[in-house]
């Protein structure tokens, strides 16, 4: 793979330094402070630490026994599966379809982008009204079909599903745009050659498109699993504080809650460290799986 062009390492610095300088100053240094904070006792955001925790690693001990955090990790694991299958999966199907049609491609590409640009507050409100107990769209519709009695869609039995559907739906467009860009990077000549060889449409997808798209799909899956770890706004608007009965915690919402609601900033910093570690580990796993896959 390595070509002789890229032997001169001197250029490397010029390519890498500007980007990483920005990140070092505005991301890595502040996050080192965050790691430091996770050992301190800090009672509100912006306040100075009141000294070391006793013992200094106590937040990490606390995490091991935290029931809500366990729920959050479990829900986040489900969320990862949902984002991989629901977001990336649907996006791949839609992108392949749009790539294969002659008319209207531009239209679909534009409208699929819509959900990402709307703020979570507005979407949260809309979904709240759709699933409203007395009487949102769904309950009105069921009543029309002759169902008696109202269903509380946000109770313990339904909450997790009702939280995940909007999150899944919102970000399909995001992966769709990334994938369709990847499709456009594939040179048209390859398809022309294949067509001359008499390949069917399915064969072209199977033997040209998917293999060439593999790196981009891998990127999408990395973004999906890391995204699941930090997703916050839409779930928080619909189900604040893990409502009902702490059933809907996610790592992202739980971290926010610890920082802003309970003002346990040091513990929140520790959860942030956990999220970063999990993000690196899961993305490593994804990269490994995709590297070993046959194509």
């Amino acid at each position, binding site marked *: 793979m390595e070509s002789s062009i890229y032997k001169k390492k001197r250029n490397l610095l010029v390519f890498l330094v500007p980007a990483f300088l920005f990140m070092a100053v505005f991301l890595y240094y502040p996050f080192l402070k965050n790691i430091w904070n996770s050992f301190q006792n800090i009672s509100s955001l*912006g306040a100075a630490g009141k000294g070391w925790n006793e013992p200094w690693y106590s937040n990490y001990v606390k995490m091991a026994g935290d029931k809500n955090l366990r729920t959050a990790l479990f829900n986040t694991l489900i969320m990862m599966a949902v984002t991989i299958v629901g977001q990336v999966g649907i996006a791949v199907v839609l992108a392949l379809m749009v790539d294969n049609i002659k008319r209207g491609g531009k239209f679909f590409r534009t409208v699929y982008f819509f959900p990402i640009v709307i703020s979570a507050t507005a979407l949260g409100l809309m979904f709240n009204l759709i699933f409203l107990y007395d009487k949102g769209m769904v309950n009105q519709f069921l009543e029309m079909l002759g169902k008696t009695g109202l269903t509380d869609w*946000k109770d313990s039995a339904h909450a997790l599903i009702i939280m995940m559907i909007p999150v899944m739906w919102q970000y399909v467009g995001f992966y769709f745009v990334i994938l369709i860009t990847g499709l456009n990077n594939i040179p048209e000549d390859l398809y022309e050659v294949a067509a001359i060889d008499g390949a069917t449409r399915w064969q072209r997808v199977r033997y040209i498109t998917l293999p060439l798209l593999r790196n981009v799909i891998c990127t999408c899956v990395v973004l999906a699993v890391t995204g699941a770890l930090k997703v916050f706004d839409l779930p928080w608007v619909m189900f604040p504080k893990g*409502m009902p009965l*702490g059933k809907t915690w996610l790592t992202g919402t739980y971290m926010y809650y610890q920082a802003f609601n309970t003002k346990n900033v040091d513990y929140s910093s520790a959860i942030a460290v956990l999220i970063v570690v999990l993000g690196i580990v899961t993305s490593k796993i994804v990269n490994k799986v995709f590297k070993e896959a046959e194509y």
Partner: protein
Amino acid sequence: MKKRVVCVLLAGAMVCSLLAGCGKKTGSDSTAGDDKTLSVTTTFAGEDGNAQNYKDAVAAFEKQEGVKINDSSATSDETFKARVETDFQAGSEPDVLFFFNGADANSFIEEGKVVSIDEIREEYPDYASNMNDDLIAPSLVDDKKYAVPVNGYWEGMFCNTEVLAAANVEVPGADYTWDQFLADCEKIKAAGYSPIAASLGEIPHYWWEYSIFNHTTPETHLEIPTSVDEGNGPAWVAGMEDIKALYEKGYFPENTLSAKDDETFALFTGGKAAFLIDGSWKVGGIAAACQSDAEDPSTLDKDKLDKFTVTYVPTNGERKATDLIGGLSMGYYISKKAWDDDAKRDAAVKFVEYMTTDDMVAKFAQHTASALKAAPEVDETQFNSLQVKAIDMMAGVTSLTGAAQDLFNGECRISTFDGMPQIVTGEVSAKDAVAEGLATYADQTAE
């Protein structure tokens, strides 16, 4: 393509201004460059009922004194609090700040970054002289008074009289007892309505406060117990048990654990629930719900608003129903930085004095409390019917007590606030939950 050219130009402009800025850095602090400016941060912004009053007052002050106000007011939320705190830490605090006087102010008072009223009076003897000093809340840190209050708050029980009439229940008054309240709830429930609009899952705060207040007295309410068995400890447990009993009888909406606060509030304004315990700011919220255009008071549906009233919270113990939770939780601070700056000291004092004259305070306070020694008469004709009812209610109040939860802040609240659903469903016993919170509180204060 054009767009891209524009972007490049804009980016170029930014780089130029960056260079220009670097050159200027030799001067002193860039906000303090002009001695005729004052930086002010308040919470009178966004949909705060006094946002417009504040803007008008600032404009008038600028005109009168020839001082430019750099106003960085913002809606009061957690981000705002964090911003204020960070500003003090980084030494970029405003000259004048309108902020909470409770635990939220502890950190900058501890570090001596604001000036106390007494210290200001040594040089400006008339500073806040129109205020009744007994009503100005002292700091939790050193018992000194720092913040000059303007408008206060109270918490009361709003009623939807339409629902009460449909259930054949009378509008409660000053001598309303707990037993009457329970009997009325039963009637309302039998008539097919929700007796109490509350989201125990999201905002149990008002019920938490009053349920405990029901078992304490105005004198003792603010004492945080050291354990469940001592001081107010049993009162706290009894309060939680009361909420549980109401929940078990089905007096809260069916989805009180999964609904958000705006949903249950909509039940109340939509004529599906009878009672709502909430703060004085909901007077505006209910009026807005009765306007076809929430921004325009002239579109108010007066008949609809007349169906709402506000009254005292029924009592279940020693306190009288007319003893309410309320007080003055915010005020104007002058920062040490501005005080030590000769160019700003005078302007900062003048600004606070201007914002706390009798007339100004009366205008901001409306039906809520104020600390004025001699409050000017209010002209009731300018108020809507609910505001008038609120003024009437306040006239009969026997005492206003601060909220215990303002002292019981942060992590210690988890077990009884966010844990309220677990308490009412019996997953955790009230006693255990209170004990857990008190233990956390003890840890916090010990530090």
